[in-house]
């Protein structure tokens, strides 16, 4: 069974069906792209996977160890606990907190000391907080952010904010990482650097990654498989080379008029 199996997932808002009958399989270790024109329902699909929206129908099954867990309808924090982590299209860092705190907050679910230790700072607290700090530093190192660990997130340049968001997502120790347009607003140089980091963290952390992206250079370069969404429906899937030549995909992106001409 694949790591994530999305089966006939549908979400309607009133009369509008934003995601319609979408089925997706993601295998362990894969790096999968999700593309489609604006308004195709990509982010809605992410929101369904991460528990922000409750599906109207269909199922989202995640393999965890030997068990299969149904994620549809679970709360976001619960989904994260099961091993899905995400970034946001419009960057949602904890802006007035330090870089360090952004990462440490995401480590929250793996902290074992309880409330009493939190109130009284027992030894357990100090021991675990030290470990936390070390781990956070290691993550920041990967994203070249350790020298800025005490800066407020809002003061980071745009590209570094995107990096910090990925670092923060990784801090939850996910098995599946969902990246929502990680290269949005980046210049080609930054995008290239990001491409490299994404590839690197996948190997380093044994991650499976699903990413939404408009930057085709990034998608075509690193994704092993691509799903294409249009008007909430899956219109194509397969390897990047095939997707590039797929007639329906070209139509969806360029409009029928062009292809007919």
């Amino acid at each position, binding site marked *: 069974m694949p790591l994530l199996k999305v089966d006939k997932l549908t979400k309607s808002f009133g009369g509008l069906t934003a995601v319609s009958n979408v089925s997706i399989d993601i295998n362990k270790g894969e790096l999968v792209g999700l593309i489609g024109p604006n308004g195709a329902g990509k*982010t809605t699909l992410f*929101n369904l996977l991460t528990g*922000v929206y409750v599906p109207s129908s269909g199922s989202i099954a995640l393999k965890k160890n030997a068990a299969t867990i149904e994620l549809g309808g679970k709360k976001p924090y619960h989904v994260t606990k099961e091993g899905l982590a995400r970034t*946001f299209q419009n960057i949602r860092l904890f802006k007035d907190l330090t870089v360090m705190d952004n990462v440490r907050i995401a480590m929250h679910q793996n902290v074992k000391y309880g409330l009493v230790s939190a109130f009284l700072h027992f030894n357990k607290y100090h021991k675990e907080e030290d470990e936390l700090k070390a781990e956070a530093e290691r993550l920041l190192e990967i994203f070249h952010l350790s020298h800025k660990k005490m800066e407020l997130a809002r003061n980071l340049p745009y590209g570094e904010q995107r990096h910090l968001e990925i670092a923060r997502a990784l801090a939850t120790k996910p098995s599946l990482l969902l990246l929502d347009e990680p290269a949005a607003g980046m210049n080609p140089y930054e995008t290239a650097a990001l491409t490299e980091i994404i590839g690197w963290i996948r190997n380093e952390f044994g991650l499976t990654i699903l990413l939404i992206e408009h930057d085709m250079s990034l998608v075509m370069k690193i994704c092993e498989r691509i799903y294409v969404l249009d008007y909430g429906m899956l219109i194509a899937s397969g390897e990047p080379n095939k997707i590039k030549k797929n007639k329906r995909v070209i139509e969806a992106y360029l409009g029928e008029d062009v292809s007919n001409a």
Partner: protein
Amino acid sequence: MDQFLQQIVNGISLGSIYALIALGYTMIYGIIKLINFAHGDIYMIGAYIGFAVTTYTNLGFFPALIIAMAGCTVLGVTIEKIAYRPLRNASRIAVLITAIGMSFFLEYTMMFFVGAEVRSYPMILSKKTFNFGDILINIQQIYIVLTAVALMILLQFIVHKTKTGKAMRAVSVDKEAAQLMGINVNTTISFTFAIGSAFAGAAGVLVGIYYNSIDPLMGMMPGLKAFVAAVFGGIGNIPGAMIGGLGIGIMETLISGYGNSMYRDAAVFALLIIILIVKPTGLLGKNTREKV
């Protein structure tokens, strides 16, 4: 049965006053998303203006009502300009705290000048009562209900049939878009405060007549209850505020009539909490959700 109907009649007259105050809350919330805590105190000032006019001149009910409304209009617009406008882009909590500050300012400035003692309102309407079977309706109640109904009809006309009303509706939906369409947002907001405060002023005079007593802190409780009425009907919704006001008024008189009047205020707030939890948008409100 008769007692029940009697309580309903009393409830309607009290409820019309709540509805008048609730309208101001709901319009102001609709347009700048602010719970204007000072609104109840504007109503208190309205009561004092009415008191001053009828005590120190020989003017009757209607002149007193109109002068109180005019005075409150000026006050409401001034408060908006001084205290709320500088915070147009601040967090909502900051504006809410400012509104609480304004409320206290009005209460205690008034207390400073007129003293804390309760004053009895001059009798400007006769206490003549009519009997319908066993149900008593007095002239005051008739005046209160008729004034409230007339003002509400006027408001409906302004909101739905005039250009300014259209601007108010536009600003409440989307401030930026309204501005781009050539609507003067600040003027529109001032106008909303003007109408809301005028209604509060009218309610002040009516309540002075109804309860026959006024004091500088009289605005607090009815202010909060009118807010509950606005939430009950669906905040930002004008018909909702009227229904909510009447609902709260009737509920209060029924509890006083049949139950323990000491628990009257608690019941209103319990109702508020229940609505907020079960249907936070109120009876007629619309739902909105944050986009991720």
